[in-house]
Structures are given as C-alpha cells and as structure tokens.
C-alpha cells in the first residue's frame, strides 16, 4: 500500500491547497464512508453499516479549464488540462476532519478548473489488487450483526463538470491555489431507507440483503452512478 501511505502523507494538504499556482485534488466518500449508514440513513433495506475501510483506486485524473463550461454530457472533455499521476489507492475512511483524503498537488496555470475526468480502476498492487472499490466493515439489523468485505473489479471512466457544493471550487490564481474533489456517493450502492422506495437511486442500488450472510462478496457497478463532483454529476463509461 505504498500509494496509500503517500496519500496519507498528503492529509495535511491544506497548506498545499493555499500554495499559489497549484491545484490540490481530494477524494471523499462523505459521511457515509467515515460515519457509515446510521438511522435514519440506513441502507434501503434497513441495515446499519459501519466501515473499517473503503479502499478505492483512481487513475487517469485530469483537471480541466473548459470554455464553454463542460456540462458532463459526453465522455470527452475539450480544454486545457492538468494531469495527476496515477494510479493512486486510498482509504476513504482514513480521512481528514472534512472527510476528505488528499490525492496529490500539481502545479497549475491560473484559471478556473471547471471539469474533472478520472477513472475508477482495479488496484495494481496491495491486498486488494484487482479490485477497484472495496467495502470492509460490519452490518447490523434486528440484532443480527455480520462482518463483510464487498468488492468490485469494474473500471469506470468519469467525465465530470464543475464541482457543486457550498463553496465553488477549482479557482487557481497567482496568489492562491485551488482545490477539486472526487466525490463518491455510496448511497448509490446501498440505497437509503430515508428515501422513498421508488426513488431512482433506491431502485438501482444494490442494498445489503444480498450480502447478509457476511464474508466476501463481489458486486457489479453496472448501472450504479457513484462518481460525482460534490453534488454535480458525471458522465460515466464502463471500461
């Protein structure tokens, strides 16, 4: 887990994020990775999930300045890009106080980086080599508790528009560095009990019942749109 260590060493990247002419990239699974699925936000089938690790591998990461702004409506982004080294494997549970894991900081020309492309790929090495995303933890429902490892080998390319959140991101100036974020919405895998059963997300989510016997299971990412930029969507393409 060399790259895991590297990513961990970048956890204090707040200072780097403030460095002029640089762009720092983060990844997050938000509270669903660091806190888990707790009531009322249980899985769609009523399980509480607590993760010990959420291991994800990213590659082919490029931040883009696009004009007109890329609208996540195609797999290709046209603009000026800053490429990040990869692949990089991180544990989204081992995050900073903001729930983020720093991936890397790169020199970047001033401008607004309003698009981001990246791929979820199988890890090339380590204990989960061959898997692009792994959930390890404990599930609890009605007094039943099971430990689980859920993993997928699927690779998915993402072409995302601008980050959407409370703060607009991606601005690099001569005085300040910028930040961008890959955001994984884990509820697109497990669903949400606090959302209607016919919510499109719940209809496509895997839930946890299929893994209720515990142990190791593999799952498919087919139809699951986990990758986002904040609350902004991405165009995703299975690889």
């Amino acid at each position, binding site marked *: 887990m060399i790259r895991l260590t590297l990513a961990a060493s970048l956890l204090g990247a707040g200072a780097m994020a403030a460095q002029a002419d640089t762009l720092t990239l983060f990844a997050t699974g938000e509270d669903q990775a660091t806190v888990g699925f707790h009531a009322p936000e249980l899985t769609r089938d009523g399980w509480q999930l607590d993760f010990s690790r959420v291991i994800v591998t990213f590659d082919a990461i490029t931040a883009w300045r696009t004009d007109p702004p890329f*609208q996540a409506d195609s797999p290709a982004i046209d603009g000026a890009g800053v490429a990040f080294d990869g692949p990089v494997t991180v544990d989204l549970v081992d995050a900073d106080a903001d729930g983020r894991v720093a991936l890397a900081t790169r020199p970047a020309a001033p401008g607004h980086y309003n698009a981001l492309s990246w791929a979820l790929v199988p890890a090339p090495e380590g204990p989960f080599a061959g898997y692009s995303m792994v959930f390890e933890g404990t599930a609890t429902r009605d007094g039943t508790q099971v430990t689980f490892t859920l993993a997928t080998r699927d690779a998915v390319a993402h072409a995302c528009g601008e980050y*959407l*959140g409370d703060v*607009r991101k991606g601005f690099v100036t001569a005085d300040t560095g910028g930040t961008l974020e890959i955001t994984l919405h884990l509820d697109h895998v497990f669903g949400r009990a606090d959302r209607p059963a016919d*919510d*499109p*997300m719940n209809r496509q989510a895997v839930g946890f019942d299929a893994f209720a016997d515990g142990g190791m299971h593999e799952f498919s990412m087919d*139809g699951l749109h986990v990758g986002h930029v904040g609350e902004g*969507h991405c165009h995703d393409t299975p690889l």
Partner: protein
Amino acid sequence: MTRPSERRAARDKGRGAAMGAARDKGRGATLATARGTCRGALILAGLVAAAPLPALAHAALLEAEVATAVRLLARYDTGAPMQGAQVIIYAPDTPAEAWDRGTTDAEGRFVFVPDPALPGRWSIQVRQAGHGALTHVQIGAGAPGAGPETAPVPAAVIERPATTAGPMQRAVMVALVAWGALGTALYFRRRGHGDASA
C-alpha cells in the same frame, strides 16, 4: 396576480426571489427590489400612494421599475419540480463568491435581476438533497436576444440535463429564461408602524 404573501416574501429575499407568478411576464409584477439601489432599473415610476406624513401610520409607497431579469426553472428529470431548492448566483466579476442566494418556489422557479453593470457569464447553481446542476447565462453585450430593454421578449432559453446518464439516474433539469424589460417591482414600503394588512 401576485399574492400579497408572495410580494412580501419577494421583498424580503434580497436580490433574488422565488416567484411563481413571475413567469406570467405579460402580467408583469413581482421582482424583488430589496437591493434597493435600482440596480438594473431603467425606468423608475415612483408612485406615492399617500402623502408621506409621519402621522399616517398606514401609508404605503408603491414603486415600479423595468429591469432585465433571469427566470430559472429547476426540476428533476422525472418532471417533479425542485421545490425549495438552494440557489446560488455567481456574477462574472467575482465568480468564486456568491453574488446572491435564495430558494426556488413550490414550482421550482426562481427569478433574479442581474446587475447590468456586470456583463459576462453569470452562473447559477441549484442544489437539493444531493442533486445539483449549474447553468450559465450571458448578460450584456453578446447576450442572445439582447435588444431594446423595453422589448419583453425571451432573450435566452437554455434547458439541459445535468447528466446524460441512464434513466435510472435522477437528473436535474434547469431552464433559464432571460428577458428584457420585465415590468416588475411592486412592493410596499410601509411608513410608521402600520400593520401589514393595512
């Protein structure tokens, strides 16, 4: 007609406001003028409905202005409106900072008056429950349909999904309509300590 409650809400919302009635552009009315600087106001028709004497506790001042407005419609790809969604507006001069914030109305609508002194690409973000969309509108020179400010014609219609993913992925649709010379800005400025219903 705009309901009094809508006018009160619009008045209190700052520079932008959610107003379902504003879509009825032919009927004019209902743009918040709370910025109070007549920003974008090309015509100010101030009507003093009553002499502004301090002794008249329930007197009202009615003002109307003509301005260029941006009308926003936000809905999910299911057709359901994004009710009460958060709206953040970014002006072209300081794109990293929110120029204004607000919420959509029950029909997913929101209207604001951009500052004509800030020409360029305005960005509007709408978010709700983990779903969001960002759209842009060009204001000023080069804006589609830019013309005489008094011509109340649609200047731009932009409607697009935030994602092109499969039908199972809930997408957000944002439609923008900017038009010139929306007859707007009816509000009451109460004097004294009168009751709102006065």
